[in-house]
């Protein structure tokens, strides 16, 4: 209960211990992953054989460190490319959506808004298979009638980008709309009144105001894309992104190089998180 309500010490202690255990539960798996990336052993498990950075830097047949593992590095690059595209597209759509929903009144707005939210409640696997079947259907039709094989409609990077974009843009729209809602329409009217054209207003008033939300949602979109598994699994072609590569290796039996990649991912995400928090504060 709130501090101003008296309660027994035992209760307070138990409560504090509970919250402590919760955070232990929250952090334990992550810490374990990072620690075992430094274990001088062929398996990410006990016993502890001593400290090593081999799983990052070594280049033997038996122990190939992360920075010499071509397949892993390649899939990281693939993931990066996908994530950059998804973040750019998602933020662009989110800005137009926010302007549409916050600055215009039109028939069917509520209905359209609900449709826009829909991707949040469609499981990722289903989103993936529906897009896959739809695009393959189109590709097959075109191939049958014109003999044209449209590569980008087959599983591969473009489809992954589209599939992730479908739900990540909804998230970005929510974030950017919330920010735009806090901009008094007076500001935009004042700019118009002072002689600005509509484009001027967007460029000099609206966009600068949205900047923190744009950067914040771009970072989150980037991460969501980078980490996405369900939709990506269905739509992936021959170039597999990092999550898919990791998944395959995990099922084959893991070596501590996976811990090394994971640790690197955590560090990267952490840095991004700090940057976006810093920008949002400013």
């Amino acid at each position, binding site marked *: 209960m709130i501090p101003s309500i008296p309660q027994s010490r035992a209760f307070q202690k138990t409560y504090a211990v509970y919250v402590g255990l919760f955070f232990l539960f929250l952090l334990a798996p992550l810490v374990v992953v990072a620690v075992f990336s430094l274990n001088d052993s062929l398996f990410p498990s006990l016993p502890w054989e001593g400290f090593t950075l081999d799983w990052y830097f070594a280049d033997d047949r038996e122990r190939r460190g992360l920075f010499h593992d071509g397949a892993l590095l390649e899939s990281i690059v693939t993931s990066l490319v996908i994530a950059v595209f998804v973040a750019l597209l998602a933020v662009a759509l989110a800005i137009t959506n926010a302007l549409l929903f916050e600055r215009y009144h039109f028939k069917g707005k509520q209905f359209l808004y609900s449709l826009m939210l829909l991707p949040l409640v469609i499981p990722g696997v289903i989103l993936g298979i529906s897009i896959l079947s739809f695009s393959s259907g189109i590709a097959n039709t075109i191939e049958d009638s014109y003999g044209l094989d449209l590569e980008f409609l087959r599983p591969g990077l473009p489809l992954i980008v589209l599939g992730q974009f479908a739900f990540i843009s909804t998230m970005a729209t929510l974030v950017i709309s919330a920010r735009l809602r806090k901009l008094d329409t*007076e500001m935009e009217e004042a*700019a118009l009144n002072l002689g600005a054209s509509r484009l001027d207003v967007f460029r000099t008033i609206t966009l600068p105001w949205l900047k923190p939300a744009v950067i914040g949602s771009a970072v989150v979109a980037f991460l969501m894309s980078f980490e996405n598994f369900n939709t990506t699994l269905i739509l992936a072609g021959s170039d597999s992104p990092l999550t898919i590569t990791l998944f395959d290796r995990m099922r084959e039996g893991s070596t501590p190089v996976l811990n090394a990649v994971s640790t690197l991912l955590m560090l990267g995400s952490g840095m991004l998180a700090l940057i976006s928090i810093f920008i949002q504060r400013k």
Partner: protein
Amino acid sequence: MTFDLECRNVSKQFGDFQAVNDISLEIPAGSFFSILGPSGCGKTTLLRMLAGFSEPDQGEILIKGKKMAGIPPNKRPVNMVFQHLALFPMMNIGENIAYGLKRNKVPKQERDKKVADVLERIDLPGIENKSVHQLSGGQKQRVAIARCLVLEPDVLLLDEPLGALDLKLREQMKVELKKLQQAFGTTFIYITHDQSEAMVMSDQVAVMNHGRFEQVGSPQSLYYQPNTAFVAGFVGNNNRIEGVVESIVGETAIIRSDAGQQFKTTFPEATLHSGQQVHLYIRPEAIHIRRDQNVTSENHINGRVESILFDGGNSQVLVKDTESSQELTVSLPQTREFNDLTAGEMISLSWDIRQSNVFSANNKSEP
């Protein structure tokens, strides 16, 4: 003669709601014109049509003799000070004031000079590099006005910009706004629901209700000669007594109140007839208050002090007529004479027959 601003039969409707109903007005150059009315009376709609944020359904708006129909807000020679000022938080003061100049492609050097000049004129020199949140409420107010005046508009529109300020600052800003208007000589159109703001600053005030102007005139004429019951009730304070016209003798009417008292009043035109239901208005500050009960006056009541609402210079007394139990609010003169007045005391009230106003009772638009 061309006016700075002219409206000819302007109307605006939202669905079934008639927001602005056939308004015409003419505002001469260099005047301070206020539109006073309760919220929802249509004054904001009118102002937004002047600024170009919406177009009238009927009628036309002319600025300096030029028709404004179809001209978008960013091309009109009017500027507006918004209710919440709308100073751009992502720019400093200098950039805020230069914003309109920059949109008009004024070269940088000239821009800087104009900004410095206008800041000088509003008594805030050299604050170009401060950010908006570093300013006090009153300073923001002045900067918002300067941001418009630097563009030398034909007309400056002000949308209740004092609403957000606390009472003391508001009093101060009223005087300051009036001074700024005189110094710049620009035509100001000021909308507000606060009658004191309108009265103190304006040359002319239009009282607006249900989309129409009830009366347009100087603050004095609105106060002393309200044309309608609405104006009488909205401008200043008033006691309202309901009654019937008993008889008319020349320019004097004798009213019998529903509570049974008899009052005499002058009335402006031949608008009354015997037996008519009327409302009689008497301002609290127009009533003499005496401790001596033996006064003879044309309108006279002996009453008991019900309670004293002490508020310094604005103190009032609630008095109940001993005969009819009609209640009246009376201003308490701060002349020492009544400092020891207590509830329960008997006093006498009287007023001049020219100090009351009478209006037909079937006027539906009362505040």
